[in-house]
């Protein structure tokens, strides 16, 4: 690992200042992605700005929504009575990320900011129509994810919290890589009075995406049968040593039907 300077500011304002002062500075949350990346020398920040003392951890239940502080760990979301009550599918998703020790450190803000194409939280944020709040503004999930490892965040912008509207029903199904536990394909289905939203992670070449054909079919008829004939073009899918594009396209349908069946 290359060496770097290290700061642990006591407020969001000071953390933003530290990031703004140096284009090579990098925020550190749980470190479950950043530290392995640093170990492989794939990144060489001048300053690592630790967000641990910025007070961004915690869960608040609102009227028909739940707001999760950016530094809240996956373990805390999985165990939260509020999240389990308001959006059980979100608590279950958090409890299925990585392993116990990854969940003890990894955070929702870090996961969304990182936007790994195989990560779980982006599917939840997109399907639930979450709002990502930063030190500067509120960003709709539809505008936040901009292709793999790419988000709307600016270099000196810190996610402070994420607000998820409560759906009438929701479920997340992940076909996971048995070694890393990341999604080979993950499908989050959320049913709202205004319609159904379906987000797919792990599969797409451009990262997490909404499945318009499935959303239309499920908004008309919320049942696994409604999407039995809906196909997913393999040309848009990722292909790697874990799964071919054709296999991923097939899995999108299987995971979506399972999610609908479990959410109904």
């Amino acid at each position, binding site marked *: 690992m290359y*060496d770097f300077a290290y700061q642990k500011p006591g407020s969001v304002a000071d953390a933003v200042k530290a990031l703004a002062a140096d284009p090579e500075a990098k925020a550190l949350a749980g*470190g479950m992605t950043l*530290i392995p990346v640093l*170990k492989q020398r794939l990144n060489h920040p001048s300053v690592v700005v630790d967000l641990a003392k910025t007070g961004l951890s915690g869960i608040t239940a609102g009227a028909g929504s739940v707001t999760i502080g950016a530094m809240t760990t996956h373990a805390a979301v999985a165990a939260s009575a509020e999240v389990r009550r308001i959006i059980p599918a979100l608590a279950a998703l958090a409890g299925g990320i990585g392993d116990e*020790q990854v969940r003890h450190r990894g955070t929702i803000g870090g996961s969304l900011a990182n936007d790994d194409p195989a990560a779980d939280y982006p599917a939840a944020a997109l399907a639930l129509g979450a709002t990502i709040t930063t030190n500067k503004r509120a960003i709709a999930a539809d505008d936040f994810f901009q292709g793999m490892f790419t988000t709307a965040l600016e270099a000196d912008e810190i996610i402070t919290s994420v607000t998820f509207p409560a759906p009438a029903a929701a479920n997340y199904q992940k076909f996971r890589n048995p070694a890393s536990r990341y999604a080979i394909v993950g499908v989050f289905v959320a049913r709202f009075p205004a319609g159904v939203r379906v987000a797919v992670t792990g599969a797409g070449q451009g990262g997490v995406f909404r499945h318009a054909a499935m959303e239309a079919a499920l908004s008309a008829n919320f049942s696994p049968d409604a999407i039995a004939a809906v196909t997913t073009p393999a040309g848009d899918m990722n292909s790697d040593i874990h799964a071919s594009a054709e296999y991923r396209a097939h899995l999108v349908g299987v995971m979506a039907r399972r999610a609908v069946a479990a959410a109904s």
Partner: protein
Amino acid sequence: MPQVSLTVNGTQHTVEVENRTLLVELLREKIGLTGTHVGCDTSQCGACVVHVDGTSVKSCTMLAVQAEGANVTTIEGLAAADGTLHPMQEMFREHHALQCGFCTPGMVMSAIDLVQSHPEGLSEHQIREGLEGNLCRCTGYHNIVKAIAAAWPLMHGKTMPAAAE
């Protein structure tokens, strides 16, 4: 040089480190506690698991400077001063839950956190899921699972209720 002050197995240490020093490097190389192992570069094997403020974490994926002020427990901190093993260590021995022993320190640290955080009981399935972050290349896990189930009543001082999953 940056300094880190932390408590390891009840003893206060102030150590000079680099900002890039990992917690596991601090433990092994600066404090000489080599019971915590390093088995991978990818944060996947769990050989390095220690407790930081009572919670199991991968010490290879935490900077030493992040542990400033923390209370760390390693495998060396489990046995009593007179050498009496922690019930989890004792059950690993009794149930032959190790062969080469490389994964064992991390397994034991993860297992203790798992049992402590499930006062309502643990099913075999929950134990297996709880060990997802720990890889063992020797035992096939079966005896590890048995040892953890056997340690639960010893750690909680009562028989394990039939776990509701």
